[in-house]
């Protein structure tokens, strides 16, 4: 009895193992259009709708488990992505800073060649510090007297006039920006060709005003450039035709004292990275042209 049961048990095992191996061999050996493949495809045709129905019916349960798993995975992914985001953020910051510097340097190159500033021996300087005080529009640059920088030399960037050197050490210089209330320069408007003095706007921080305009013919949108020196006896610190800005608003007022001509600076003084200090003095023969159609530097 026991032997018969053992034999039967072993026979069952042998039969099913053999059946599996036969199936395996036959299936593996036949082509995709073979009998077993066809049977399998037929079975799938029958089981397919059942599977689909079951899949839809069990979707909530699957989603629940998936949600648990996703939550666990999400924590890990979050930490990894946070690290990546920080790394990319640093990279982007570096790239943006580099791009900004590149743009400013390129503009300076253009203004040097197209605007003829090369003859003033421009010295490139990196802005190393800026006054945090609202009351001082000053920057510190990393070039000083050892690079030929002296007090009162004009400072420009690719967009136009930035300011003038107000203090110098051997390695660094302080530049007073054109928006500082201590700053003033001779200027002229292009188009109406009005001579005036440009200085910081009292009412609008960061803005400029044209003063002592001889006739109220200035229009909005006119360009304002440095006037340069008209007389060898009254030498200007600034070469002629350096862009200062554009007239942004004209308040005529009742009289000369009420008249306000607002100018928006051409240079973005809030994001200065590189500037150029024009280290060669302005010669009397480099006086500004009085031709109103004269083309200024870009």
């Amino acid at each position, binding site marked *: 009895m026991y032997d018969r049961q053992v034999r039967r048990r072993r026979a069952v095992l042998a039969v099913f193992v053999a*059946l599996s191996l036969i*199936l*395996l061999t036959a299936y593996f050996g036949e082509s995709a259009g073979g009998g077993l493949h066809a049977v399998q495809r037929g079975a799938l045709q029958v089981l397919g709708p059942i599977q689909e129905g079951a899949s839809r019916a069990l979707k909530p349960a699957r989603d629940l488990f998936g949600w648990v798993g996703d939550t666990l995975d999400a924590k890990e992914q979050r930490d990894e992505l946070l690290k990546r985001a920080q790394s990319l953020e640093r990279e982007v910051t570096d790239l943006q800073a580099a791009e900004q510097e590149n743009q400013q340097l390129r503009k300076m190159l253009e203004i040097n060649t197209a605007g003829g500033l090369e003859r003033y021996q421009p010295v490139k300087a990196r802005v190393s510090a800026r006054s945090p005080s609202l009351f001082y529009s000053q920057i510190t640059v990393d070039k000083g007297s050892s690079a030929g920088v002296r007090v009162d030399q004009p400072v420009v960037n690719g967009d136009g006039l930035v300011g003038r050197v107000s203090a110098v050490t051997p390695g660094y210089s302080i530049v007073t920006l054109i928006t500082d209330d201590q700053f003033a320069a001779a200027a002229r408007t292009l188009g109406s060709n009005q001579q005036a003095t440009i200085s910081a706007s009292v009412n609008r921080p960061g803005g400029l005003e044209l003063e002592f305009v001889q006739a109220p013919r200035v229009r909005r949108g006119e360009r304002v450039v440095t006037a340069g020196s008209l007389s060898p006896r009254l030498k200007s610190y600034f070469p002629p035709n350096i862009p200062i800005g554009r007239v942004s608003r004209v308040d005529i007022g009742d009289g000369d004292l009420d008249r306000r001509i607002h100018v928006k600076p051409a240079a973005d003084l809030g994001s200065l990275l590189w500037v150029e200090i024009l280290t060669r003095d302005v010669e009397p023969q480099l006086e500004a042209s009085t031709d109103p159609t004269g083309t200024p530097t870009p």
Partner: protein
Amino acid sequence: MNLVPNSAGRLTALAVIVVIVQVAAVSQIEVFGVPIDVSTVLVMSVGLLCGSVPGAVFGFGVGLLIDTALLQTLGITSLLLTLVGYGAGRLRELRDPAHGLTPMAVGAVAASVTTVGHAILQFLLGAALPLSLLLLREILLAIVLSTLLALPVHALVRRVLLPYLPDDPRRRRRRAYTTGGLSPLSRA
């Protein structure tokens, strides 16, 4: 066969339902990147509860259904699950383990047999099988998952088959074991 004859229908229904649920839903759930597989522990549980012959037959049937439903190479899963069902059944017949954690241990062995056996068979059939640390990690995770699933699946199978089982080891464990060392399955 020590089972009540009517149990064949219930085992068949169990096999079909579990395979459909496995294929349609459970396989799509991944834990730590490894899909959950209840078929192995299901066959193991049937073998452990019903004996070697029902275990082998059930394993073959479940394997055949899975291979058919998933258009896999016929015979591979059948072969492995036949061995799992038979082995679990033989353990029951020879040792009659009544410890509550037995399904976990047997489930771990069963999962090892199926995962490693599957890899070996695929390799023998010429499938490109990159032996990497990632693969080993996934095999280990699959074994761990099956081990953890063994207890609930075993409890479910025992509940389904309870009316048809000749004797339940857990019930028998509660009373004094006075009939000797052999399992009721092997005495029959």
